[in-house]
């Protein structure tokens, strides 16, 4: 199901994803708002996050298989190589095969703004790891 090319997808985009982005942007400083662009069949959210002192530029891609397949979030700001960071500075956020429900992306429950929130928490972990060399939360099985 694509957000852009099926009726179900378009309904989800207009009734779930876009309102969530608008709600997120309400009262937000201009530079920290989410910008939504279309690149081919993919929707790309571009935004900045500043969990602590440092500002990171990120993008979250909603592929044509979204929301069945989780969104992909990439940090565009150069990072030190660290745990839970995949090729292309893509954040490793979810494990779809996990037996632990909270480790999996659930399309019935989450919106693209959840991906941003997960990225924010990942960045907090990164800042702590940067100083200590230890990821502050244990990995789930």
């Amino acid at each position, binding site marked *: 199901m694509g957000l852009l090319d099926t009726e179900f997808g378009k309904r989800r985009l207009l009734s779930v994803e876009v309102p*969530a982005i608008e*709600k*997120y942007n*309400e*009262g*937000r*400083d201009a530079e*920290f708002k989410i910008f939504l662009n279309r690149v081919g069949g993919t929707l790309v959210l571009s935004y*900045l*996050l*500043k*969990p*602590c*002192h*440092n*500002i990171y530029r990120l993008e979250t891609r909603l592929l044509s298989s979204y929301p069945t397949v989780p969104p992909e979030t990439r940090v565009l*700001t*150069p990072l030190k190589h660290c*745990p*839970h960071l995949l090729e292309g500075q893509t954040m*490793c*956020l*979810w*494990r779809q095969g*996990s037996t*632990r*429900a*909270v*480790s*999996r*992306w*659930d399309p019935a*429950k*989450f919106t693209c*703004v*959840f991906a941003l*929130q*997960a990225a*924010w*928490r*990942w960045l*907090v*972990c990164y*800042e*702590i790891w*940067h*100083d*200590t060399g230890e*990821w*502050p*939360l*244990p*990995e*789930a099985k």
Partner: protein
Amino acid sequence: MDFRPLTETERRTLTTALRGNSDRGLALLMDRRDTSFAGTAEEVPDEEVINAIKSVPCHY
């Protein structure tokens, strides 16, 4: 980017907040203007849910 590290106090505060989030579902709050860390909360009013990291799925 010139990385500015956390102070010892900031690191301790954030580590405690992350563990509270992971172990007992404490919400991590984002500042509504610039997304900076704004503390933790047991309960979050509906209008602030968009700025509260609570039930976000994650594998670590």
